[in-house]
């Protein structure tokens, strides 16, 4: 049983093929990092998995159920949640409301227009708890759009994991963070994704090698290597295509 599995997934934008046959299996509980040069198609891959774009061909399944023809909200309900490379939060809502929104569906409120939010104790407690967890309690009532960049990223992560999905996709969660912020964010991610399946895109090699159980290298829409960090780091092809320039 795999948590997430991709079978020869392809994506064309017009005539150009961006994702050229990606096959990938992610085991439950695995921490899987995808690395690769800019424009390799990592974000596109996330977009395909999460249903933002339809795939051109191939197969994607979540917990052995096909999800590749489904709209994003159904995929989410099936237990997959993602974050965005470009921060994507509800700008005008307060931090607390952002988190509460992220909790709503999973706690069974659906489209309810008869239950008053302020009376939902369990919901509010959970949101407050998350707020503490994310270290955002002091910013509780500030519109999310006014948070600092790092705080927004933290909120983004918080909203992604709030719904309690079993498979989490994080797109460059630490992009634009300072070293200490990055360390903090990584600790947070480690903590909140305990026992979940994590698929993450990241450029920061320190983070990647620290966190990942498995690394996949994507170059021009193709997987050129996949395996435990040591194997990937020592792979010739990977060094040439991605790590080489850094390592001299």
């Amino acid at each position, binding site marked *: 049983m795999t948590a997430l599995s991709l079978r020869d997934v392809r994506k064309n934008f017009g005539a150009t093929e961006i994702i050229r046959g990606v096959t990938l299996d992610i085991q439950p509980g695995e921490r899987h990092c995808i690395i690769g040069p800019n424009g390799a198609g990592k974000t596109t891959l996330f977009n395909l998995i999460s249903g933002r774009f339809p795939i051109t061909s191939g197969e994607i399944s979540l917990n052995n159920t096909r999800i590749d023809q489904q709209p*994003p909200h159904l995929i989410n309900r099936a237990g997959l949640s993602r974050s965005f490379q470009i921060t994507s939060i509800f*700008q*005008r809502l307060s931090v607390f*409301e952002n988190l509460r929104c992220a909790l709503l569906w999973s706690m069974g*409120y659906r*489209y309810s227009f008869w239950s008053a939010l302020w009376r939902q104790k369990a919901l509010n407690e959970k949101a407050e708890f998350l707020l503490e967890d994310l270290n955002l309690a002091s910013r509780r009532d500030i519109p999310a759009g006014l948070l600092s960049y790092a705080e927004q990223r933290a909120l983004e992560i918080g909203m992604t994991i709030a719904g309690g999905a079993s498979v989490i996709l994080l797109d460059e969660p630490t992009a634009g963070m300072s070293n200490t912020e990055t360390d903090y964010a990584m600790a947070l991610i480690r903590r909140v994704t305990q026992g979940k399946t994590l698929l993450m895109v990241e450029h920061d090699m320190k983070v990647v090698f620290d966190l990942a159980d498995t690394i996949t290298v994507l170059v021009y829409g193709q997987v050129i290597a996949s395996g435990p960090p040591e194997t990937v780091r020592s792979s010739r092809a990977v060094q040439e295509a991605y790590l080489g320039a850094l390592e001299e």
Partner: protein
Amino acid sequence: MTRSGNGARWIWVFAVALALAVPWAFHNFQTGRDSGFVLSMLSQMGMMVILSLSYNMLLGQAGLFSLCHATFFGIGGYATVHFLNAAGAGSLPLPMEVIPLLSGLTGLGLALIFGYMATKQRATAFAMITMGIGELMATAALMFHSFFGGEGGVTTNRMIDHSLFGLTYASGMQVYYLILVWTLICAGSMYFLTQTPLGRMANATRDNYERAQFMGYDPRVVRFLQFSLSGLFAGVGGGLYAITYEIVTFDALAAPLSANALLMAYIGGTTVFGGPILGAVLITLLQSGVSLLSNSWLVYVGVLFISMVMFAPAGLSGLIIAHGPIAAAGRLRRLTVPYLRLVVPFLALVLGFVGLVELMSFLTIGAAQGKKLVLFGSAINIEATQPWLISVVCLLGGGAWLRWEARAFHRVWESLTADLKQRDRV
């Protein structure tokens, strides 16, 4: 939070008390007669409050720019006429007080149908679909007589002789209180809706519909439900319209009323729940009040509108809210003098502008009527150069002066808010 929350509560209490008391301020205790005009205005305000609040469920809360909101208001009105006629004929055994609920359900019914179509899209495409729907319905209302009564509309008699409280609804006063109660019910329900999961997700899809999708919500369903519910309230508003005027014509669902809903919500401010109420009151005053004074009232509405968009995009309520932090810090007094300094040049500007517009319109339109131009209480000879000169001077001088004072005001404001920020940090 609690402090401003309490303040807000008192404002509501005050507003309700005011609404209860106002008609008596215009009551003539000697003759025992009410002011019908004032009651009509107040009643009109009541239904417009419902209309603009329900419109803001779309524009402000869900980010949906609808151009057919009057459709649901109007259909509620038409249906109510038929309900009232049936009730009057004895075939609908319902008391008057409950009938607006039926009107609302009619609005809801139609909103379910049109909402299903329109909410398929969002942004401009949504706006254009609703514009089309509005035009279709307005034209249909003129074309199909059995339900809409053509151009003459359909009439009814609200004295159906069936009331929970034994009221006849012959007098405008009784009708006004009926409207007030329903307005409070609607406003309360709409406020409640903003505090429910659906209301919150409407805000969320407004800010970022894509993210909402990745949280398990289908933004289209959110839009659809929000749209339908706003149709429900608009329908109630239309029902009250029918009860007040006892006639509904196609004007009740035509484009100008849709535009009015938009104007009221925007001018009042879409970001705060109560904003549209301010807008509804102001616009009703302008349309029914100022239009008694000047036939050029449309120009004033236009200019007010443009200046609001340019200088106060958050609307009246936005302007008020901006003072919140300063008031909370107890520094409001420091703004008194700067405000007072704005008043004189502002008045000069307004005087000049109004003067010029009225002189102009009297020169070309009014002069032919042989009416005397009465401006600010005194008759004015439009042939003389003097009034023209004064107006131009007021306009230009006031404008320049106001600009200058506005800059000074801006500096004071900036320093105040900067101060507050400083204090926040400490």
